[in-house]
Structures are given as structure tokens and as C-alpha cells.
């Protein structure tokens, strides 16, 4: 009731009076709006560049139109197909192993009965997430280095030959997948653990009375409870199908593994910034950002049809 009367009063007062009444909240919003407009929406205006031939002196707006030429150029580069395939392959492997591993790890941490061990384990598994990829790639390089590296020392002790891991195109994707699991899966369990924590303990107790063992409880109580969370995270993962983690690849790759490791974001960076092909770089970015956006919309629709909550 009270709220309704407030609404009615508000409708009656004019625009300036309304502003005067709530000026403080609008003032609070101003810096945020300014930064949003300039730094988030400003680059979107720059997307025009994909349809123009840039004339540095004239600026983007006055440069002549190029139609769809730059989009045609993109697909005349042989490396772009390779970059797309690599991105999809790396993301598919991450989905297949990384995504499922996170769920498994969350279930295991949840089943861990020793409180002390559990909190120490959580402290350790969350930690790598906070290290930058520069640090983490430095560690990877050290572990996988020939001669003194830990992995090669183990191989040597087993009487196996030395492998120069980060130069082996065939191994590179697997190195990324494993590194990614170690770096991020612990932190990613938090959201599942929070969802599991919301399950009423009575459910487990009554299941126990009915003679259920721990497997039954995981299968029929815990898992169904986190299905909506899994669905939401799956959407986000799918939406990122075309955007492989730049930092992860950029800090670990080298020309020797471009064949299996060069992804869309690193390729755009090399072409757009490295070779200063601004128009083509912009066109590439537009194509793949647009694709990701469509995928996320479609996936969200799909999940809604499945009758669990979507992300919007």
C-alpha cells in the first residue's frame, strides 16, 4: 500500500521536480555512466572500422566505405581457419575434461569429512586462480624445461628420453588443458559448493533412514540440486566457445606450436596490433564477438525451455 501511494505521488510530479527529489542518486550514477559510455560503448562505435578503409588523418567517420571487403579478406587468410579450429578444439577439451573435473572436485570436497583437511585443501586449490598467467606460465616453463625441468628429470629417472614439451605441437593442447585444470578448477568449485550447501540436511537424513548409501545420496540428492548451476555455467562456457583465454595461450605459446595452439584472440592480436591491419583485425573481432553473442542468446533460450533458470 505504502509503496503504491508513493508511486502515485511520483507520477504526479513533473520531470524537474523528480530530478530535484532524487538528484543524489542520479549524481552517483554519473561517473559510472561516463566510463560506460566512453570505455565500453566507445569501442563499439569503433566497430565501424570493419566497414571502412582507414585514413588516419580523416578519422574513422570520414574514411571511405569499404563494404564487406575486410570480411572477405579474413577468410582468405589460411591461418584463420587454423585459429578457429584450434580455438574450438581447445575449448572442447576444456569442456570435456575441465568442466567435468570441476563438478567431480566439488562433489569430492563436499564429501570430505575431516574439517581441518577440508579447509587446508580448499586453501590450496583456490590459490592458483589468483596468480597471473605470467607467473603461471613461468612455472609451467620451469616444470617442463629440458634438462633441469621436473618432468624431464622424472622421465630421465624412468630411463625415458627428454621431451621439449612446449615445442611439441602434438602436446600443446593437453598442456593447456592440464594447466587450466590446476589453475582454475579449485576456484570454480565455489559456486557448486555454495549450491550444495543449500541442500537441506533432512533430505540426507531421511535418505539414510531409507537405507541409501553415499553414492545414492550423491546421485539422487546432491547432483539434482546442482543441475541448474551446471546448466548456467554450461551456457557461459558455450558462449566462450569462440573466445579462448588470451592470457593462457599468449603467455605459453611460441611459433613452434602455432599449428595446434594459435587461437582466434592471439591471431587477431598478431594481425591487428602486431601487423597494424586495423580494419581486418576489427572485422575479425566483430565476427567472433557477434558469434559469441548469438550463441549465448540461443543457449539461454534453450536452457529456459529446459525449465531451469536462465542467466538473464
Amino acid at each position, binding site marked *: 500500500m505504502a509503496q503504491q501511494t508513493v508511486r502515485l505521488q511520483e507520477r504526479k510530479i513533473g520531470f524537474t521536480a523528480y530530478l530535484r527529489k532524487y538528484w543524489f542518486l*542520479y549524481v552517483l550514477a554519473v561517473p559510472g555512466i561516463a566510463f*560506460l559510455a566512453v570505455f565500453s560503448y566507445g569501442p563499439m562505435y569503433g566497430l565501424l572500422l570493419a566497414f571502412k578503409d582507414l585514413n588516419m588523418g580523416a578519422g574513422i567517420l570520414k574514411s571511405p566505405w569499404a563494404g564487406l571487403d575486410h570480411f572477405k579478406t579474413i577468410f582468405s587468410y589460411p591461418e584463420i581457419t587454423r585459429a578457429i579450429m584450434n580455438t574450438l578444439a581447445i575449448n572442447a577439451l576444456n569442456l570435456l575434461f575441465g568442466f567435468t573435473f570441476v563438478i567431480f572436485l566439488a562433489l569430492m570436497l563436499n564429501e570430505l569429512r575431516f574439517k581441518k583437511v577440508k579447509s587446508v585443501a580448499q586453501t590450496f586449490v583456490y590459490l592458483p586462480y589468483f596468480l597471473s598467467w605470467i607467473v603461471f606460465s613461468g612455472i609451467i616453463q620451469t616444470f617442463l624445461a629440458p634438462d633441469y625441468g621436473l618432468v624431464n628429470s622424472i622421465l630421465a629417472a624412468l630411463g625415458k628420453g627428454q621431451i621439449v614439451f612446449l615445442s611439441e605441437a602434438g602436446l600443446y593442447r593437453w598442456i593447456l588443458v592440464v594447466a587450466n585444470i590446476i589453475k582454475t578448477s579449485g576456484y570454480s568449485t565455489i559456486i557448486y559448493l555454495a549450491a550444495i550447501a543449500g541442500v537441506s540436511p533432512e533430505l540426507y537424513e531421511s535418505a539414510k533412514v531409507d537405507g541409501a548409501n553415499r553414492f545414492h545420496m550423491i546421485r539422487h540428492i546432491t547432483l539434482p540440486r546442482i543441475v541448474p548451476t551446471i546448466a548456467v555455467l554450461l551456457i557461459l562456457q558455450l558462449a566462450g566457445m569462440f573466445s579462448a583465454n588470451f592470457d593462457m595461450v599468449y603467455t605459453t605459446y611460441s611459433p613452434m606450436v602455432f599449428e595446434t595452439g594459435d587461437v582466434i584472440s592471439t591471431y587477431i*592480436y598478431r594481425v591487428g596490433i602486431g601487423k597494424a591491419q586495423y580494419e581486418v583485425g576489427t572485422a575479425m573481432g566483430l565476427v567472433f564477438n557477434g558469434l559469441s553473442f548469438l550463441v549465448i542468446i540461443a543457449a539461454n533460450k534453450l536452457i529456459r525451455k529446459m525449465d531451469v533458470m536462465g542467466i538473464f
Partner: protein
Amino acid sequence: MKRRLGFNFFDLFVLAFCVVFALICFYPIWYVLVVSITPYEQFLNTPFVLAPPLNPDFTYYTGIFTSNTFLRSMSVSVVVTLVGTSLCLLVTSSVAYAVSKTHIRGMKLLNAVAVFTMFFSGGTIPTFMLYKNLGLLENPLVMVIPGAFNVTYYIIMRNYFSYSVPKELEEAARIDRANDIQVFGRIVLPLSRPMLAAIGLFIAVGYWNDYYTYMVYCQIPKFQPFMWALRRMLTDATFTSSTSSAAQQQLNIPKIPALSLRMATVIVAIFPILIVYPFLQRHFAKGILIGAVKG
């Protein structure tokens, strides 16, 4: 009978799995720490690093803290982190509070406009062109300013202001004739201090770890952040570390920076994070950040 003991093979498996994975996550950091204080010749004899050496060697750390390049880049990183974090907290939290008042005209639209940027962006090159036009290219301010509005933290803060600050307190203050400024300053902000502290730490870690902005948009050696100094040192050694020693001798490559020096630099780079980590963990474990995914 087994169940009554309360511990069975299932528990054993769970325990083993968690302990092993926790060690896998922690071991790299331990390894780096131990190698950074082990004399290189001694390290070569014992590549399976477990315990710290009996005669720890801290010369590499003194090397870092007496090197002008490192000291300078460290102070750049500290300034960027402090200024960037304050700016981001200020800008993002104030707009998030305004938008949390959804009954005010325009706020729902503003929210949609803000959340949209989470799913679609101009991309690397248009951003590059924009900075160029704004004069932010090759300008150290670029490491601080564009990050002032962060959409992820915006969503978390907005949810926190909407759901975790008790409406009754705000209403009560209004009945006592407090205006919007007083409500915000005396009620909302003090109540949100734990959330702001937690998110501030996350923002700070983001600024500290950022190398991309410098790499793409700044590139003035005088203003290189610590992460970039570390990156340079690591990559100068990359070529040599991915080539075998025999090849190195053949190619006659000059001696790489000692492994221990590189590891010591890594430790310095992660030291601030290790310091704030207990606070970080206390907050994110409480689920403050869960709001991010629920959009």
C-alpha cells in the same frame, strides 16, 4: 558394521583424491620458493625439489631489491594498483547503488545498458583506436583509467545493495528525515564495508596481475609494471629453456638469467597476493561473489 565405524573405502578415496589434488595445486608454488633459495649448482644435483636447502641462499632476492629496473617497476605496480583500485571501487559502487534503487526512473534501462557490455564488446582493435584518439596510447594513465567501471563487480555490488542491506534500516532513517546522502553515507556504506573490502581485494589482484594493458597500449619502459618486467625476464630465457643444452652449446647462446633468479622474481610477484590471500579466501568462501553468475 563398516558404516557404523563411520569410515570406509569411499571416505578413503575422497580423502586421497582431495589431498593429492591439493598438493598438485600447491606444489608448484613450493617448488618455486625452494628453488629461489637454492644455489643453482646444488639444484642441478637434486631436481626433485622437496625440502628447503640447509644452506639457503638469498642473494637473488637482494639482487632484485637492488636492481633499478625491478624497484621502479615495483613502484609502478604499487601505484597502479592503489589508484586503480580506489577509482574502480568509487565509480563502480556508486553507480551500483544508484541502480539498486530500481524504482527510480531510468535505472532499469541503465542496468540493461551496463549488463549488455558483459556479453558484447568492441574488441581489441576498436579499443586500441579509441585510446589512440583519447591520447591514452603510450600514456601511463591507460593502466588505471579504463578499468574504472567493472561490469562483473558492478553486478555483485548491485545485488549486495539490493538484497543484503536491510531495507528497514533505510526506511527508518528516512522516517527520521534523513536525506539520500545521509542514508548512503551513514547507513549503506558502513553496512557494506565488508563487501567493499572483499571486492577491493579482488580488484587489486586484477590490477597487480595485469600486463595486457601495458603490453598493448602503453609500452613505455619507464612505466613497465612488475608483471611485465617478470615477463621480459622469463621470455628472454624461454628460447634457451625450450632448447636442449646440447643445442645451446652449438648455437653458442649466452648464459640465461639463473633459474633461481627467475624463481625469486616469481616469488616477489606473488608475494602481495599471498599476503592478502587469507582475507580473500575468508570473503569469497562466504559466497559474496556468487551473485556474479546469477546476473
